[in-house]
């Protein structure tokens, strides 16, 4: 699989709410290989979501450029990327449409893009849902399902668009740790079947090391890579690696860097509150 390489090149983002300019992302450069799971780790509010929004095309950037497979998404002369089905986002608290059934939600993308008829899209949706162990929920509304199931549905909905990149914004944040571990294995299982590039934002280091081939630890606002780590534990992985010595070593290597940023973020939060 060759498609789905992202290059973030010297990106700066300044927010300007009412004249007070806030530097959210500061000269951030990051290369993500096609088909790679790249985990972005940083404390809450550090600016990682800003980066994701820029890739998705929800927000503009101030300077720098972002490329997808060599094509510029946004950059000089084009501050905001156009949102598109090649880069689909899975949101923090989920964004399944509550007024559509699960099947309608999953079939939504291809119908919107005019790629498939309703019938074909729904057939494909049933197929992919069966693959992900979600059969039987087709006729439900999202509100009737547990948040873990909803999150899996949402990933399937994203994959229905045949994206090159999956942008995940702390998708498992609201889940309890047991559900989370199930979700991680389910995500990897989906990933092994559809090798898309995964840009995964989290503040959970263990999650990052478990899933990622590479982990980028970001500085707190302004956001920029502080440390980029290759997780040299081969895929496919399962939960037994959590206790493997190499996993513990990587954890030890990174935990200080993350903790340092968390402290900074905490102090900054206190200052803002004062």
């Amino acid at each position: 699989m060759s498609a789905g390489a992202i290059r973030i090149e010297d990106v700066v983002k300044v927010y300007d709410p009412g004249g007070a300019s806030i530097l959210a992302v500061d000269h951030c450069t990051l290369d993500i290989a096609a088909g790679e799971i790249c985990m972005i780790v940083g404390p809450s509010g550090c600016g990682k979501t800003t980066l994701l929004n820029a890739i998705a095309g929800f927000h503009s950037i101030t300077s720098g450029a972002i490329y997808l497979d060599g094509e510029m998404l946004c950059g000089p002369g084009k501050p905001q990327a156009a949102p598109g089905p090649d880069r689909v986002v899975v949101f923090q608290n989920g964004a399944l449409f509550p007024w559509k059934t699960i099947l309608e939600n999953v079939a939504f993308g291809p119908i919107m893009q005019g790629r498939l008829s309703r019938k074909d899209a729904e057939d494909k949706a049933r197929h992919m849902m069966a693959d992900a162990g979600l059969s039987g929920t087709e006729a439900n509304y999202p509100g009737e399902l547990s948040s873990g199931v909803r999150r899996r549905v949402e990933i399937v909905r994203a994959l229905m668009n045949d994206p090159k990149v999956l942008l995940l914004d702390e998708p498992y944040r609201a889940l309890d740790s047991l559900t989370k571990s199930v979700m991680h294995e389910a995500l990897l299982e989906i990933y092994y079947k559809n090798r898309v590039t995964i840009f995964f934002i989290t503040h959970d280091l263990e999650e990052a090391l478990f899933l990622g081939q590479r982990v980028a630890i970001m500085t707190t606002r302004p956001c920029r890579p502080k440390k980029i780590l290759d997780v040299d534990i081969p895929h496919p992985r399962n939960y037994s690696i959590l206790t493997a010595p190499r996993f513990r070593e990587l954890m030890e290597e990174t935990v200080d860097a993350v903790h340092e940023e968390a402290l900074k973020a905490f102090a900054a939060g206190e200052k803002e509150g004062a």
Partner: protein
Amino acid sequence: MTRALSRSILRGTIAMIVFLLLWELGSRSKAWLGFPLPWISAIPAPSSVIVVWGALLHDSGYWQSCYLSVLRVMAGFFAAMIVGIPFGLALAINRTAYGVLFPTFEVLRPIPPLAWVPLSIIFWPTQELSITFVTFLGAFFTMVLNVIGGAKSIDVRYFQAARSMGSSSFDIFRRIILPGVLPSIAVGAAVGMGITWNVVVAAEMISGGASQATGAGGGLGFFIWNSYVGGSYPQIVVGMISIGIAGYLSSELLRALGDRVTPWLRRR
């Protein structure tokens, strides 16, 4: 489930019977206490109301009054829906429209519909139209506010998700905004219907009924006022309860309709 339901129906029925019983005793307090209880003894007893009501059921004038009020409520209500929903959507979607129209809307909104009655009588060629117009106003403002509020409270992530999955602006309007405001429309309709009944009765009292010559046929508001003027007190209560029942039925109807169009909320 059904047990809880039958239990709550039983409770409601018992409460209603107790209420009627206390009322009956209160209104007849002079007969059994020797002196009238204050306030309550001036109100016609339920038994006398029922007798008068029974007689009225054969009176075409009573039915004519009910019919006229229902007609005005329906006309005003549906006009408010037909005008209010698109108007609210336009204000919610279009920033320019919002900037131009919303301030005027907000100045007109606090004016009670009844304050419009005189102007409405001057402006509209027939009395029927002026009553319907005032009724319309009652539901219109509520409807518009609900639609705007509903549209604005749609989570931005739904728009972002729809956009990144390739939806056009029209798709977003049809598949995100419209279903997204439906629950608010249902609420607005239920509230608006209640206001409509309030307004229609008052407007009928003020404007004095459609055919002054016969003294009948002016709607339930006029029916109540006319009963008061004519000194038929049980008939006042009949008019009031008729409005209560009509209001209850229309609210239930709207609730059922609202549940139907928002199945994702009902099943939860």
